[in-house]
């Protein structure tokens, strides 16, 4: 019985884990600037578990017109978007696009289904794509459960500035 305990602990939901992110969208010197479409998600190393944190796109355009370019968030579309019944299925993490600046985000673990992530290896992804502009994907691995608060920092080169993810147990 004692031997079973650690296994049991592993399968327990990580109810307390919280995720926060800081995202910097760079100022770009371009003739035609459109706010980028952006997606942030967490995926397990076997890609079987994917939890969306945020999706910024033109969700309020009439007749779902803004969905036309979601496929350009290529990684996100492949891993998650194309399997979702848009736009309803993305309600919990959809937001409007944002122009250059720094954004502090905290995610509602319960609403996003982050409370029942099993222990294991994960990757945090952020992908941004801009109309008549470029596309950039950044990712960083981390392990759950986190025994103490950890902050992972990523540096974009084109469409993204500095991005950090904080995981708190």
């Amino acid at each position, binding site marked *: 019985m004692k031997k079973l305990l650690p296994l049991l602990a592993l399968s327990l939901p990580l109810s307390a884990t919280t995720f926060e992110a800081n995202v910097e969208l760079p100022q770009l010197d371009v003739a035609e600037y459109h706010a980028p479409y952006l997606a942030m998600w967490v995926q397990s190393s076997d890609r079987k578990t994917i939890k969306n944190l945020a999706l910024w796109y033109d969700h309020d355009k009439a007749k779902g017109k803004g*969905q036309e370019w979601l496929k350009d968030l290529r990684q996100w*579309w492949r891993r998650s978007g194309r399997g979702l019944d848009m736009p309803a299925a993305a309600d919990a993490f959809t937001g409007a696009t944002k122009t250059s600046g720094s954004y502090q985000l905290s995610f509602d673990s319960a609403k996003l289904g982050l409370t029942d992530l099993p222990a294991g290896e994960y990757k945090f992804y952020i992908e941004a794509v801009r109309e008549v502009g470029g596309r950039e994907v950044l990712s960083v691995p981390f392990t759950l459960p986190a025994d103490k608060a950890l902050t992972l920092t990523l540096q974009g080169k084109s469409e993204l500035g500095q991005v950090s993810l904080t995981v708190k147990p």
Partner: protein
Amino acid sequence: MKRTVSTLLAGALALSIPFASQAHRAWFLPAATVLSADNAWVTVDAAVSNDIFHADHAAYRLNGVSVVGPKGNKVELQNTNTGKHRSNFDLQLTDEGTYKIFSASSGLRARWEDANGKRQGWPRRGQKADMAEFDKVVPKDAKNLSVSQFSRRTETFITAGTPSTEVFKPTNQGLELVPVTHPNDLYAGESAQFTLLMDGKPAAGAEVIVLPGGMRYRSAQNEIKAVADEQGNISIAWPEAGMYWLSASYEDNQAKAPATNRRGGYSATFEVLPQ
């Protein structure tokens, strides 16, 4: 008499350009293969050319082109146009899932030498093989008589929203490709597995070449070669993102009488996306 002459002429013409449409490369080129909008439209070019995806030779005739949707329904080709070097049509993807654009043909072809040593062929170019005619026209005791059962198929795939697999069901006629890896889920640096079938059975030994598009802007064909294994399987590693043209050919002597050999040709266009 006149009729005989024209038959002979047509025969000679057919022989002077044997397998004309195989010598050149037939292709569909969709403007997009992965779509996220509701009721998305996609436009498709269809042509025959040596340089892949450069429409500089002949238009692909649209009368044999069909489109099947995710629910097995027939999808209408809209705004069709056939120009000198290229045909074009639009599709509206009203259902979520994977669509297949295809053109397939099959039939019999006989060749022989007549008493004067002249090469003859049946059926006439552009005509369908009619079995009733076969017995009358083709001399069974002719020199070097060869009767082939042939099939040809050209395809491509497009997905709106979530990919589906209903359109992968083979007809079990001719040379066909059954995707193992979804053809709208191809990425640079990854490999894709496909199964080739001849009349529904593994097309072991089928020869495959894969060519990246944009041939005009490089000096070599850069073809990727593969041979189907005993189960008919091939694996293609995609070196980089882009549009690719796959061509497979198969030949054996397992034909149904009166044919003595059967050959199949298959080609398809695949889009490979960057990671």
